[in-house]
C-alpha cells in the first residue's frame, strides 16, 4: 500500500510534481502512466526518500520510507537498472544490498536463480546487456521478499522475450497479493499488465481509475463507412448530430453512431454502402488524447507557443 498525498516537488523553478494525490493498492498491478517528463520518476524518488518533497507526504504501509524497520522486506524498487557499480560482480552487488537489511546470504543465490543470472553471478556487471542489468535490478528488488514493488520503466530497451518475462513476473507478484506499481510512458505496455491506472501529466493527476473504466471512458469506437455517395451520407450523419470525417482512402469516419444506426440511416436515405466497420480506438490513442495537453516536449508547437521549456531531470 502506497499513499501519496499532496506531493509537490520542485527542481529550481521547475515544478516536477504538482500536488499529486493517489494510492496504490495491493493485489493488483497499478500502471503509472504519463508522457516523458510528466513526473513519474520524481514521484517514485520521493516515495523512496531519495528526493525530499517540497510539500505533501508519501507513505508506505502508513510509514515514511526511512522509518521502515527493514526497508527491503517492505519495498523492492527498481528505478534505474544501470545504477550499479559496474566493477562489482552481480553476486557482490546483491550481497552488499542484502547485508544492509541483514538478509541471509543464501537469498542472493536464490534471487539470482529466479532471474536467470546464476551463470554470470561472478561477472562484473559493466559487461551486462540492458536486459541482464534489468534482471539484476529485479533480483535486487526481490531480495527481501517485499510486499510492495516499484518498477520505473522496467521494459525500456528490452527484447520481446524480456518484456514477456517482466509482464508475467509482475502479474505473478500481484497475484500473490503484493502491491505492484509500474511506470511507463507507453500505454501499450500496460494494456495487458495493469489492472489499475494512474495517469499523470506535467506533475498533475489526470486519471486514477481501473483499466476497464479507462477503456470505457475513452472516446471509444468510431465507424468506418465506404460509399459512392460520400457527401450525401455526411450530410445525413450531420443531420443526426454525429460527426463525419473523410479518410485519405475515400472512406469516412463517423463518430457518435453505432454501425447499426449508421446502416439503418443509409438504408433510409437510399445510400449504397460498400463497407461498414467498427473501429476500436486503441488504448494508445485514448492515452494520447488524455495527455495531449500535458506533453512536456512537442515537436509541432511553433516556437512562440512553446509550453514552458524545461531541462528535464525527472526522466
Amino acid at each position: 500500500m502506497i499513499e501519496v498525498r499532496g506531493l509537490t516537488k520542485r527542481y529550481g523553478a521547475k515544478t516536477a510534481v504538482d500536488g499529486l494525490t493517489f494510492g496504490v493498492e495491493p493485489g493488483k498491478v497499478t500502471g503509472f502512466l504519463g508522457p516523458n517528463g510528466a513526473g513519474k520518476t520524481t514521484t517514485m524518488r520521493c516515495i523512496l526518500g531519495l528526493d525530499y518533497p517540497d510539500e505533501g507526504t508519501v507513505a508506505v504501509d502508513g510509514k515514511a520510507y526511512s522509518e521502515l524497520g527493514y526497508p527491503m522486506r517492505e519495498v523492492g524498487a527498481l528505478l534505474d537498472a544501470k545504477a550499479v557499480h559496474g566493477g562489482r560482480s552481480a553476486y557482490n552487488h546483491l550481497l552488499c544490498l542484502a547485508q544492509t537489511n541483514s538478509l541471509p546470504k543464501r537469498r542472493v543465490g536464490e534471487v539470482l536463480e529466479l532471474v536467470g543470472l546464476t551463470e554470470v553471478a561472478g561477472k562484473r556487471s559493466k559487461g551486462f546487456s540492458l536486459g541482464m542489468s534489468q534482471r539484476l535490478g529485479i533480483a535486487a528488488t526481490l531480495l527481501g521478499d517485499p510486499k510492495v514493488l516499484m518498477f520505473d520503466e522496467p521494459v525500456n530497451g528490452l527484447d520481446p522475450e524480456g518484456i514477456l518475462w517482466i509482464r508475467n513476473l509482475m502479474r505473478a507478484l500481484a497475484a500473490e497479493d503484493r502491491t505492484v506499481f509500474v511506470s511507463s510512458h507507453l500505454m501499450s505496455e500496460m494494456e495487458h499488465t495493469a489492472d489499475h491506472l494512474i495517469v499523470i501529466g506535467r506533475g498533475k493527476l489526470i486519471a486514477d481509475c481501473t483499466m476497464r473504466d479507462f477503456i470505457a471512458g475513452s472516446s471509444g469506437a468510431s465507424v468506418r463507412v465506404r460509399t459512392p455517395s460520400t457527401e450525401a451520407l455526411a450530410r445525413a450523419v450531420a443531420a443526426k448530430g454525429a460527426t463525419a470525417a473523410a479518410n485519405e482512402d475515400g472512406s469516412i469516419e463517423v463518430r457518435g453512431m453505432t454501425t447499426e444506426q449508421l446502416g439503418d440511416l443509409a438504408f433510409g436515405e437510399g445510400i449504397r454502402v460498400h463497407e461498414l466497420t467498427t473501429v476500436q480506438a486503441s488504448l494508445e490513442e485514448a492515452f494520447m488524447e488524455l495527455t495531449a495537453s500535458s506533453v512536456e516536449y512537442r515537436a509541432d508547437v511553433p516556437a512562440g507557443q512553446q509550453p514552458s521549456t524545461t531541462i528535464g531531470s525527472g526522466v
Partner: protein
Amino acid sequence: MATKTISDVRPSVLPPAAGHAGLRGVIASEITKLRSVRSTYWTLAALLIISIGVGVAVMAGESSSLTNNVGNKAGFDGTQVSLIPFFEIGQLIIAVLGAMVITSEYSTGMIRTSLTAMPRRGTVYAAKAIVFTSVTLVISLITSFIAFFAGQAMVASTGVGASLFGTVKIPANAIFNGPGSPGSPPKVTLQGTDVISASSVLSAVIGTALFVTLVAVIAFGLGAIIRHTAGTITTVIGVMFIVPVLVQLLPDNWRWDIMRFFPDSAGRVISVTVPGGGNAHLWSSWPQMIVTACYALVLLAVGAYLFRKRDA
C-alpha cells in the same frame, strides 16, 4: 532463459526480523563494497609499493651519501627520511581511495540503489566512514612500519639508522675543516651527540600513519561534499600541496603564522625524531596533528550534513 517464477523460489527461508536494520549490517555491506571492486586493491597496492619502494630507494641513496661523506651523519633523521615518500606521495594515493569510496557511488548511480536499500542516510554515511577509516588506518600503520624497517635496513652499516628497540646516538654537528684532497669528501669533525629514543621513533612511525589516515578522511569528507571524483581529488591536491606552496610566496614574518593552521603542516613535524629537528615556526608534532584532525572532523561533519540533506 528464466523459466522460473516467483513462486518457485518461495522465500519461506527468510527468517522473521524484529526491530530495525541498523549499523552492523550496513558496516558489513560497506566492507563488501570495498573489497569487491578492483580500484580498492589497486590503490592500496600503489600505496604500499610506492611508499615502501621509494622509501627504500631514498634510504639506499642516503646510505652511500652517509658512507662517502661522514659529515652527513650529523643530525641525520633516518626515521623521517624513510617515511617521506609515505607521507608526501602516499597521502595522495590514499586520498584518491577516500574520495572514490564516496564519489564512485554518485558517478555510477549506485547511491540511489544503496539509499533505497538503506534509507537511513546517517547510518550509511557512518558505516562508510567507519569502514574506510579503519581499513586506511590499518594499511597506513602496516605501510609506515614496513617503510621504516626496510629503510633502516638500508642504512644499517652507517650506524646512524633509527631503531624502535633502543636508543640511538648520532652526531649532532659536523665541523668543516677545509676541502679534502681532490675527488674525496671534505674533512669534517663530528661533534656532540643527539639522542634518539625508541619512543620518539615509535611516535613518529605511528604518528605518520595517523597523519596519512587523517588526510584520507579529509578526502572522504570532501568527496561527500563535492560528489565528483575528479573535482574531489583536485581539491585535495589544492589543499594539501598547492596552497602550501603558494603561501611560500608570502612574507616570512607572517607566512609561518598561517602555516600552523594548514592541514599539511603536521606531516612536516610528526615524523621528526632528532631533537630540534622540527620546524621552529610550527607547533610540535601532536598539537600540529590536532590541526589536521580538526580539518578532518569538520569536513566529515559537513559531508554528513549534506549527505543527509541533499536529494540523492
